[in-house]
């Protein structure tokens, strides 16, 4: 082998080994990096009560940030951070997280709970889709593959009218949730968390 061929082979191997692996030049990566302390690398939270941001629709991400910043969603942690995200560039961060692949949740949902949830999920499907995929055009979130404890906590907040007060888009859901026992809300969360 000549020197040039050896060099070409080694260069090709090196590029092949690293192409697509480094994140440095990915749009939004540098700005999103501090979120990973709680939301996991690339927005794939490994903590049951912390939402996965990977694969979240940009419009819903943006709405969530606006709601936290304005206090329509109450969180001591997210209220200041939502303001930080707004100044940093919410569109860029929304696009970054939307482009990340949502990894399956680490914890295995209780199979019996998930089965009970599946049986009771009919009303949810009318807005969130048959597979919980959401509806981007209507800013209805994807709930499939989301962390179970986070989903359950949000359902409890909606039920108690402690999230998004006065928001007409969720009036119907809140009314429906009032009729559902808390344990059954946990079943729904377990079911949707387990969907891919």
């Amino acid at each position, binding site marked *: 082998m000549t020197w040039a061929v050896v060099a070409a082979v*080694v260069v090709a*191997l090196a590029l092949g080994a*690293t192409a697509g692996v*480094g994140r440095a030049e990915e749009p939004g*990566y540098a*700005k999103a990096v501090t979120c990973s*302390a709680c939301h996991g690398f690339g927005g794939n939270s490994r*903590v049951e009560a912390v939402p996965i941001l990977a694969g979240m629709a940009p419009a819903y991400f943006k709405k969530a940030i606006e709601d936290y910043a304005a206090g329509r969603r109450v969180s001591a942690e997210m*209220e200041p951070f939502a303001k*930080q995200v707004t100044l940093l560039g919410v569109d860029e961060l929304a696009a970054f997280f939307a482009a990340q692949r949502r990894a399956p949740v680490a914890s295995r949902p209780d199979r019996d709970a998930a089965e009970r949830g599946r049986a009771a999920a009919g009303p949810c499907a009318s807005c969130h889709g048959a597979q919980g995929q959401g509806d981007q055009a209507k800013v209805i979130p994807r709930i499939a593959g989301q962390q179970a404890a986070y989903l359950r906590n949000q359902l409890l907040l909606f039920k108690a009218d402690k999230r998004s007060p006065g928001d007409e888009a969720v009036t119907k859901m809140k009314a429906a949730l009032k009729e559902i026992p808390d344990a059954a809300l946990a079943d729904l969360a377990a079911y949707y968390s387990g969907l891919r």
Partner: protein
Amino acid sequence: MARLTRREFLAAGGKSAAGALTVAGLAGCAAMRGETESTSRRRVVVVGGGWGGATAAKYVRLADPTIEVVLLEPSATFVSCPFSNLVLSGVRGIGQLTFGYEGLRKHGVKVRHEAATAIEPDTRRVRVGDGMLAYDRLIVAPGVDFLLDQVEGLAAAQDRILHAWKAGPQTVELARQLHAMPDGGVFVLTVPPVAYRCPPGPYERICQVAWYLKAHKPRAKLIVLDANQNIVSKAALFRAAWQAYPNIEYRASNKLARVDPGAREVTTDFGDTVRYDVVNVIPPQRAGAIAVQADLVGADKRWCEVDHVTYESVKHRNAHVVGDATIGLPVPKSGTIANAMGKICANAVVSLLAGRPVAAVPPLNTCYSWVNDREAMAVVNAYKIENGKVVQIEQKLTAGHSTLYAQHAEGWARSVWTDILG
């Protein structure tokens, strides 16, 4: 690396290790594209494997795996300071806070359990043992060291008077002393003047010691000698939490001047002497010794001033400093901040090595404090970058302490430990 001879190039290419191939391949690219030596010799050395350093090492590799990263950390394990006050009260075991560095190795970080004994910023080299390690960019995460000479008698009493301010054997030993203390005894805890690692940490520790004493030694007392004029962080929240602990005697503006382990006495700068059964002196602090040796500290010889966007030292180019050792940013010396700095600095270093502009990204902070065995509270800080400087947008405190925030604290810890080491 750009100056590799043909023989060296072939030798490197012939190795099976992917790292060697990668480095050699880049050298080839550089030669072909005619890049200068500075952009093609790419080794980042990280000094210190704590919250800032371990995070930085991992995130350089995540941003650009063609960069060689060497992490120098003498300790074989990482022990989390956050949550270590719970070891004193027996609510957690030290094992639950102890992790290995295998995760970093999986990211291709070359973890060497050796100490950097000197840094030569001018020649861009770090001394390790008998050898020298060259770098293109250096990230120093030295943590803190103690100014023992500011308290008379403290340096000579290090085997008996514990700080437990670097989680590890001292944490376990202080817990043992607390648990062995007689009921009716006096535990003295001294808080150093600002700036020190973890502003709310001493006050969380006060909660944990008081909670333990209340439950197990109801006749015992905790006397706090605080060098500061008031509780340094979350003052109103801690005052509210301490309502549950009448066994706390808190004395502000009581700076520790002298320790006498023979007589089991400490003396303040007012000349007041307090007798103790167990003492915990959290000493005055400065940046870790290596930062002083490398002349990365300011005129006060204590802390390192850095650029707010790149964390490059204002004193030495190509050397960056992250974590508790830094000064000048309006941020607490907290684990979350060190983690954020590690990531932002890693991305800045990767951009600088590639000749790209550096994204201006502010850090963020959450800081949870446990007030008993099952409740916690938090302070949250958000920032922006304005004219190249980090500026605080908002500081928010939780309304009080609760089991909900304890759950948040646990979730944060699991997540951030994975972010640092996983």
